[in-house]
C-alpha cells in the first residue's frame, strides 16, 4: 500500500478538541464531523484538503480526549496518512482501529514543510519527500497491525476472524 499527497503541517500537542471541537460531538456521522475538522487551529484546512493529502505534525499529536471522532473526521476529510514525531496513545489506537494509517517519524516531522509533496510506502515505512528529494525511514507496522489495516480496521478484522 502507498499514499501520496500534499502536506498540511502542524506543531506540538495538536489536541482532539481542535481536531474536532466538542461542540460538534452531538453527531457521529463522519461526513458531518469532517466539515469541522481542524476548524479551531486552521479554518482553511477543510476548504483546501484534497483526497490523499497528508498531515504532518510534531510531538503528541491527538492528545486529549479519547474521541474516535477525531481520526474519523481526519480520514473522512480525505487525509491518507498522518505522520508525527509522536502520537498520544489513545489517538494511536483509534487511528489504527478505524484504518487511518499513521507513522511515527521525528526526522520526517522535522524535514517536511507545509505544501511539500510526500509519498509513503506502508509496507517498508519509507517516507519520500518528493519536493525536497529526501527520504526518511519510519518503523513499518508490525504484522498484527498490517493485518488490522489491511482488513480496514479492527471491526472488519474481528468479523473476518468470526467468519473463519
Amino acid at each position: 500500500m502507498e499514499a501520496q499527497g500534499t502536506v498540511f503541517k502542524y506543531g506540538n500537542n495538536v489536541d482532539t478538541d481542535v481536531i474536532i471541537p466538542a461542540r460538534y460531538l452531538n453527531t457521529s456521522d463522519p461526513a458531518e464531523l469532517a466539515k469541522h475538522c481542524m476548524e479551531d487551529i486552521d479554518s482553511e484546512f477543510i476548504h483546501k484538503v484534497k483526497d490523499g493529502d497528508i498531515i504532518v505534525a510534531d510531538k503528541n499529536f491527538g492528545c486529549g480526549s479519547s474521541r474516535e471522532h477525531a481520526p474519523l473526521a481526519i480520514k473522512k476529510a480525505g487525509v491518507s496518512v498522518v505522520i508525527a514525531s509522536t502520537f498520544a496513545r489513545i489517538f494511536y489506537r483509534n487511528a489504527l482501529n478505524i484504518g487511518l494509517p499513521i507513522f511515527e517519524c521525528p526526522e520526517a516531522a522535522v524535514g517536511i514543510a507545509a505544501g511539500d509533496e510526500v509519498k509513503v510506502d506502508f509496507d517498508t515505512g519509507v517516507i519520500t519527500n518528493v519536493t525536497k528529494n529526501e527520504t526518511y525511514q519510519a518503523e513499518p507496522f508490525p504484522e498484527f497491525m498490517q493485518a488490522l489495516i489491511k482488513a480496514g480496521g479492527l471491526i472488519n478484522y474481528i468479523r473476518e476472524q468470526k467468519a473463519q
Partner: protein
Amino acid sequence: MGMTMTQKILAHHAGLPEVKAGQLIMSKLDLVLGNDITAPVAITEFNKIGIDEVFDKNKVALVPDHFTPNKDIKAAEQCKLIREFAHAKEITNYFEIGEMGIEHALIPEKGLVVPGDVVIGADSHTCTYGALGAFSTGVGSTDMAAGMATGESWFKVPSALKFELTGKPGPWISGKDVILHIIGMIGVDGALYRSMEFVGEGLANLSIDDRFTMANMAIEAGGKNGIFPVDEVVLDYVKEHSCRDYTVYKADPDAEYDAVYQIDLSTIRPTVAFPHLPDNTRTIDEVGDVKLDQVVIGSCTNGRIEDIRVAAKILNGKKVAKGIRCIIFPATQKIYLQALREGLIEQLVEAGAAFSTPTCGPCLGGHMGILAKGERALATTNRNFVGRMGHPESEVYLASPAVAAASAITGRISNPEEIAD
C-alpha cells in the same frame, strides 16, 4: 527481570507468566465502559460484527453522562440509542438519569471495579480506577465495540514512571495540587504510553478521593494509566462498595522504571494550571491578579464528597462575588444526596452558588455553563485546552476545589489560606 504492578496485572490477564514493555498482548477484560458520546459509535460498530450478544452482560457498563439530562434533540437521540441497546442486550449496568453520575465516579461507587481488574472505557479518564489498584485505560469506540464482542483487547505493554511520595500535605492541599504539580514537572507528554505508579509512605496521607483525582489526570501527562498500591485505604473503600473478589498485585522489587521521581508532599503549594495546557502550572504564590467570570466545581476529577465539603467549608457564611457565576456539580446521585443530608447544598446555595444535577455538562463545554468570547473560568476539571468550555477565545484555569471556592468569593484566583478563617 521484575515486572511493574501494571505489567503483572496485564500478564495475568493475558495468561502469560511474564510480559515486557513494548510487547503486544491480548488481554481478558473485567469491564467495558462507554458513555453517550462514545457508545453510540461503538454500538454501530458492534452491530457490523454480526453477533447478537455482548460477551458478558454483567461486564459492560453504559453511562449517559456527557450531554444529559438531554441537552438537545441530537443528544436525546444518542441516549435513546444506548438505552435501547442496553435493553435489547439485557445489559445490567446501564444507569438512567436519576440513578446515574459521571462515569468515573459512578463505576467505583457501584462496586464495578476492584483491585487487579483490567478495565477499558471509551473515555480517556477511565484511568481513574487505578486508584483502586486496577489497570484501567481509555480507548476508542472501536476498541469498546470489539471489547463488548470478544471480552478481550490488544495492548502494548507499557513501561513505567515511579513517583515516590513522602511527607504530609498542608491543610488546603489536595490530590489535585499534587497531580497538577507532577504534570507541571513532567509535561503533557511526560508519561506518554507509560504507566504512572504512585508509591511511598506519603500515600497514607492521601484519601481515596485524592487518589481518584490523581489517577484521573494521569492521561493529562499522556499516561496510559495511573496506579496505586492496594493498602488499607483502598481495601476499606472496596469492601464498602463491592462484594466482588479481588486480587492484590504488587510491583516486583527489581521492576524497571524509565524514571523515578521523589516528591515531598509537605512542599506542595496550591497549584493552578494556566491556559491552554494542564502542564502550564504556577503555584498560587506566582499567580498574580487573574480576574474571573465563572468558577466551576465538580467533574470526574473533583466532584466527590470531599470536594463538595471543602467548597462548602470555605463558602459557608460567605457570598460568591457579584458578577461571578459559581456552578457546582456533584459527580453522582449518591454524592448529591450525601451533600444534601450533610447540609452542604444549603450552605452553597445560601452563598450564591448554582447547584446542578450530576452531568459532565460544563466540563467539556457541553451545556450548563458555557463561556462566551473573552470570558475566563477557574475550574476543578482536568482540561484547559482552547475552547474546552466554550468559545475558542475563552480561557480555563485548573485548580483544586479549595482554590476554586476561595476564588468564587473574591472574583479572582485566590489562595484558600487567605480566605478561610
